[in-house]
C-alpha cells in the first residue's frame, strides 16, 4: 500500500469512502458506494493530482451477500507505483445497478457488457448493455454464487450436463457450495 496516495485519497474523498483505505503488496484499495462512481472516477481520471488515465481492469464480484464492481486503475509512476483498486460495494443482489464509466473510457463498454452477462449487474449509461458471450435467449448469470449448472441445464438446451462439483463428489456437492458462499467481504 502506498501511504502517500492513501493520505491524498482520504483527504480528497473523505466520507465518500465506505471503509478506510486498505491494501497489500503493490495495491491500494478504496471502497465507495454506487452513487459516487461518476464523480470519484472523474476526479481520479481528470485531476492532475491523481491522473489515473489507464483503466487496467473492470470486473464484477459476487461475495454471496452483495455484488461488487471492481476497477483497477494505473497512473504515472510519479503519482504512485501502486495499482489503485476501486471497489463499488454493497450492490443489492436482487437488482444490482451501477453507473457506467463509458463516459471516461469508451473501452469499458465491452467489459461492462461482460460483467452484465456474467453477474446481471446493470450499468446505467452504457448504451450497448446486452449479453456478449452467452446466447441472447439465455436467462441465467453464470458467475453468480447461487448459479448451479444442473438447474440451468434443466431450463435450457444443455440438459444432461452435470456440474463439475457433482462429478467429483456427488454427495458433498451441496454442502461444499454452501460452505463456499458468504466468506469474502
Amino acid at each position, binding site marked *: 500500500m502506498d501511504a502517500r496516495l492513501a493520505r491524498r485519497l482520504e483527504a480528497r474523498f473523505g466520507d465518500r469512502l465506505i471503509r478506510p483505505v486498505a491494501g497489500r503488496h503493490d495495491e491500494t484499495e478504496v471502497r465507495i458506494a454506487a452513487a459516487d462512481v461518476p464523480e470519484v472516477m472523474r476526479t481520479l481520471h481528470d485531476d492532475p493530482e491523481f491522473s489515473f488515465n489507464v*483503466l487496467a481492469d473492470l*470486473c464484477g464480484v459476487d461475495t454471496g451477500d452483495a455484488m461488487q464492481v471492481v476497477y483497477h486503475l494505473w497512473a504515472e509512476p510519479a503519482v504512485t507505483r501502486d495499482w489503485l483498486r476501486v471497489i463499488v460495494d454493497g450492490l443489492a443482489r436482487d437488482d444490482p445497478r451501477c453507473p457506467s464509466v463509458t463516459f471516461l473510457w469508451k473501452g469499458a463498454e465491452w467489459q461492462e457488457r461482460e460483467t452484465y452477462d*456474467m453477474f446481471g449487474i446493470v450499468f446505467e449509461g452504457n448504451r450497448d448493455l446486452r449479453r456478449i*458471450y452467452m446466447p441472447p435467449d439465455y436467462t441465467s448469470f453464470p458467475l453468480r454464487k447461487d448459479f448451479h449448472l444442473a438447474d440451468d441445464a434443466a431450463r435450457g438446451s444443455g440438459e444432461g450436463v452435470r456440474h463439475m462439483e457433482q462429478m467429483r463428489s456427488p454427495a458433498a456437492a451441496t454442502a461444499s457450495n454452501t460452505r463456499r458462499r458468504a466468506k469474502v467481504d
Partner: protein
Amino acid sequence: MTRTISKDDPTLFVDSPAALIDAVPPFPPRSEREAEFYALRDGEMLINLGPQHPSTHGVLRVVLKIEGEKIVDLDPVLGYLHRGVEKLCENSDYHQAICYTDPLEYISSLFMELAPVMAFEKLLDLEVPRRAEYIRVLTCELNRVSSHALYMGWQALDLGGLTPILYAFIERDEIVEMLAAQTGQRMLFNYFRIGGVNGDLNHDFMSRLGDWMSRALKQIEANERLLNENEIFLNRTRGLGVLDREASLRLGMTGPNLRASGVPYDIRRAHPYGVYPELAFDVPTRQEGDSYARYLLRLDEIKQSIAIIDQCLHKMPDGPVMAKIPRLIRPRPGRAFAAVESPRGQYAIYAISDGTDQPFRMHLHDPSFVNLQAMGAVLPGNLIADTMAIFASLDPIMGGIDK
C-alpha cells in the same frame, strides 16, 4: 445413360441453406445501440463476416453495415469460443487453474501462465527464487519473439502474401522446439508453477538457444527485407486504421497497439515485475498509429526481446528454481491483482481467496478483448477489402477474447 436435371435433385439444389446465419437477429433489439445499428437507411445493407472466416484468427462474427464498398458501421458478435474459464477456475484448486488459463492465447501461452502464478504468489506472500525469475523472463521473451514473428506472417497473409508466413513459421518453429525441449510441450507449455518453474534449464534447450541466438537478428532482418519496403504491403497498411493517442487511451488499448499511437505504456516499465528493473531495454513507440506503425513496432520489440534474452543469459544466478511450498495451498483470505506485458498487451489476473484451496473468484483481463473494440473506431469509412488488413494489424486472438 441420360440424366434429367430437376429442381428437386438434392445433389444440385439445397432448399434450406441451414448453415447460413442471418445477419439480422431474430429478436427485438436489446439495447439502444443495437436498435440503432440494425435500423437500415436507404442504400445500406448488412453482411456477415465470419464466423468461419479464415482470417478472423479464430471464430469471430462481425456484422458489417455497408454502403457500396464502404463500411458504415459494424457489430462484432463474440462468444463462439466461450468456455467459461473463470467458472472452471473457481471450481479447481490453485495449481489446476494454471492449466485452464494457459490455452487461452495459444500463441503466447507462457504469459497466460505467468499472470495467475504471480497473482497466487501475491496471495501467498511468496518469494520466488531469483534463478526462477530469470528463467521466467528468458522463456517469456522467447515466447514474445515467436508470437511477434508469427504476427509478421499473419499480417502479410491477410493481405494476400503467402510467402512471409512460411518464413515466420521457421522462426516460430525453432523457438517452439526449443521450449518443447525445456517444458515437454510445443504449445501449451504449463511450465510455470506457483513459487517457481518446473525444472531447471536443460542442456538441450541451452544448446538450441545458443544456436538460435547466433543468427536470430540476421533472420529477423531477412524477414524485414521481405516486407518492409514492399509496395503492395505499404499501400495497404500505411495510413490505414489510424488511432490517435487520446482515442486509444480512452479505448483502453494496451500493448503494441497503444505504443504505436505514441503512449509508452509497457507494464515491464510502467509497473515492473520479476527482474525487469534489473534489465536494460527500450520501450519503442511510434507516433503514426496506423497499421504500418503497429507492424514496425513489433519488429522493434523483437529486437529488444533478443537483447533481454542476451542479458538474462549473462546475469542468471545459480540456485534453486522452486520455492518450498506445500502441495495443497490455502492462501489467507484476500485479493490480489497481477498484470504482465503479453505480446498483445496487458494481461491481468484478479484473484480473490476465501481461505480454501480454490480461488473464490478469478477474473481474466485479456488484452485482445479490449483491443478488439478498436475495430468499431477504425473501420468505418474504410473499404471491405481493408477490413481484414486492419483487423490483422490489431493482432487479436479469439481464444483469449472469448475465454
